[in-house]
């Protein structure tokens, strides 16, 4: 993961976790696409079964060909857009912060971040038969600074991710407390800077 692409990257900051939604979400996209592909197949089969010769007449044949071709382009476009949405939705946990990158359609992109020291509460949840069986679920990160919660949607191993973020947040808080305690920026220096 090239960190130089991320905003406000700090020297020495390392990526600990790079998360995407569970592969089951991609399977759902492919299943939906398969269902859409089967619709005209069944429609044509029903017409043939009913003795309707659609492609024999130049008008009805041409019309059917145009409808089928248009439908194929639309289904492909939808599938590609859903795959891009899946691919670009990601969550990055570094040694300093948590970054939430959410792609909502093609023209709506949200990038938000929270510093590990600002994290107050982390909750992981696994719901349903598939979630339990395939170990995927959500992780909610509540920060002190923002009202809005970070939500890691349908990620693999949410419990493990929760533990990792908790450990990193604790380490970060201890580190920051130590920095403040040792006085990395003594008050006289701050006063002179002003």
């Amino acid at each position, binding site marked *: *993961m*090239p960190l130089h692409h991320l905003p406000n990257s700090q020297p020495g900051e390392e990526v600990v976790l*790079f998360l995407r939604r569970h592969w089951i979400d991609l399977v759902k996209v492919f299943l939906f696409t398969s269902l859409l592909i089967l619709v005209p197949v069944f429609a044509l089969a029903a017409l043939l079964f*009913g*003795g*309707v*010769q659609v492609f*024999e*007449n*130049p*008008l*009805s*044949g*041409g*019309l059917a*060909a*145009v409808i*089928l*071709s*248009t439908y*194929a*382009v*639309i289904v*492909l*476009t939808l599938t*590609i*857009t859903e*795959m*891009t949405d899946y*691919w*670009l939705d*990601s969550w990055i946990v570094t040694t300093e912060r948590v970054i939430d*990158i959410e*792609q909502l359609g*093609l*023209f709506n*992109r949200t990038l938000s971040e929270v510093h590990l020291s600002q994290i107050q509460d982390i909750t992981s949840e696994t719901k349903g038969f598939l979630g339990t069986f395939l170990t995927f679920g959500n992780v909610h990160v509540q920060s002190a600074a923002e009202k809005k919660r970070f939500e890691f949607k349908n990620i693999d191993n949410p419990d493990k991710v929760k533990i990792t973020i908790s450990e990193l947040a604790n380490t970060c808080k201890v580190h920051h407390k130590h920095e403040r305690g040792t006085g990395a920026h003594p008050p006289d220096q701050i006063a002179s800077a002003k």
Partner: protein
Amino acid sequence: MIFPLWYILVPYAAILLFGLLFLFFNVFHLLRYGIENGKTTALIAVYICSFLLVVGGSLLFLTSFTWNQDVDMLELLPFNSENTKTFGV
């Protein structure tokens, strides 16, 4: 009402243009915001290949019809004799 058959290709061309535009935006987003690795490059290749395959296939299918003839709008109506014969009603 009589009209040239190729008129019904216009909506297809519009959707094709729309699909091409979306393909461009998808590839642009992956290049701009995607992680630079082989998987993203492979995904872009899959997008372009599948688009070429679908569009190529549909164009090949469409060329099997004669588009330069005129058709009567009335042929579309269900009570038309020729039409009922074609649709086997």
